[in-house]
């Protein structure tokens, strides 16, 4: 039936997503077909009702003020000082620049380390450790197809102490990635893989970990992907798993 074919398109038409030529044709049809006109009216009513019902929750003014304060730019310092003061300040700046730079690098690295550690802990604390449960890399790897915008290889684990438990989706910032869980002597190790170019600038090759990290970790970039291996297993085990992954990639 002609109407049946039009009715499959009604939602797209009412969402304003139909190409203009088809929109004109459906306009003409709706004006001459009482059945489709009634259907379109019902759908429009439905859309309006959802729109009205959906605007349900409003933030408190106190919460708005709190967020606005938290994102407000810091007040600009006045630089209308004398040249002498500027010279004195620049001397101080030059003297401390090296230590400041090192401090920033360390802070950025610690923040990045903290985010990776959070992902590891969140996975372990989750009621379901992995979304795809399999020790078979040929099952786990295809599960990520269509879920993340890149592909990666997993190592053969025969004759090693490691076993693959499965994988899950993860996000670092806004970047989707693969989160794999390995086991070695009852220690869980997280392997996180992201596209290098999608990651924030803080996660670069100068990645640093805190002075006393709660987890051992290795990270490297290979084939446009950034790998993180983190867990409470020994540094030697973390290093061995990292080497296996590097060989597979």
């Amino acid at each position, binding site marked *: 039936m002609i109407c*049946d074919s039009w*009715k*499959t*398109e009604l*939602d*797209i038409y009412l*969402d*304003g*997503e139909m190409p203009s030529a088809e929109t004109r044709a459906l306009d003409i049809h709706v004006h001459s077909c009482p*059945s489709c006109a*009634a*259907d379109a*009216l*019902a*759908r*429009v*009513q*439905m*859309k*309006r*009702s*959802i*729109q*009205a*019902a*959906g*605007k*349900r*929750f*409003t*933030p408190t003014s106190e*919460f*708005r003020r*709190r*967020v*606005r304060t*938290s*994102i*407000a*730019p810091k007040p600009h310092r006045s630089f209308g000082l004398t040249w002498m003061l500027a010279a004195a300040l620049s001397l101080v700046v030059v003297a401390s620049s090296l230590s400041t730079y090192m401090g920033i690098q360390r802070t950025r690295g610690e923040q990045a380390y903290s985010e990776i550690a959070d*992902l590891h802990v*969140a996975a372990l604390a*989750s*009621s*379901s450790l992995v*979304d795809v449960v399999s020790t078979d890399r040929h099952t786990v790897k295809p599960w990520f197809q*269509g879920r993340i*915008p890149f592909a990666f290889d997993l190592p053969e684990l025969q004759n090693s102490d490691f076993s693959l438990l499965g994988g899950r989706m*993860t*996000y670092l*910032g*806004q970047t*989707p990635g693969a989160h794999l869980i390995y086991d070695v002597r009852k220690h869980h190790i997280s392997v996180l893989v992201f596209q290098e170019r999608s990651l*924030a*600038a803080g996660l670069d090759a100068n990645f640093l970990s805190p002075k006393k990290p709660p987890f051992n970790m290795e990270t490297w970039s290979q084939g446009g992907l950034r790998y993180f291996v983190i867990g409470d297993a020994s540094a030697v085990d973390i290093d061995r798993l990292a080497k296996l992954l590097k060989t597979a990639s």
Partner: protein
Amino acid sequence: MDVSGAGLKSDSFEELAMPLFDQLYNFAHWMTRNREEAEDLVQETYAKALKGFASFQLGSNFRAWMYRILRNTFLTSRTGLKVTMTVPLDAEEDGPELAVERETPETLLFGRMNHEALHNAIDDLPVHSREILLLCEVEEMSYQEISETLSVPIGTVMSRISRARRSLRDRLRPLAQETTGVRGSREQP
């Protein structure tokens, strides 16, 4: 809301982000179903967005970017992890799934249903259906914008919207039938 041009500064973040505050909060509350969690989610979203603003790509959609951050933050939160665990890994996503539906007396009534019934029906939807319905109908995002927000192809957006609407109608139908006394009208030729 496309942001274009050079010279994005951190103080322009506030100008761009605060007009989205109410709608982001509304969306967050629908996702978390809890005021405190919604506030935490929005606060964290703004903090992350401000931190990553320097890496925001000029010319891309700022609103979609903010929603994407909020959604990703939600999905990795404790509540988000819990709800996504219950979402079936269905084989959707291959393209629009647009079943033919005839108008029925109850569909005509949906528009006049009281808000509470509609709230409950929306709240009862699975998280993927709830979020896409809100983005499409409440935020009035285009399919392209939704595609950018959810990081899925437009075909998947269309099929999810279609499924969400059908699912909502299925939840509302018994209420409409109670009101009208209509039974089984969908089976009619």
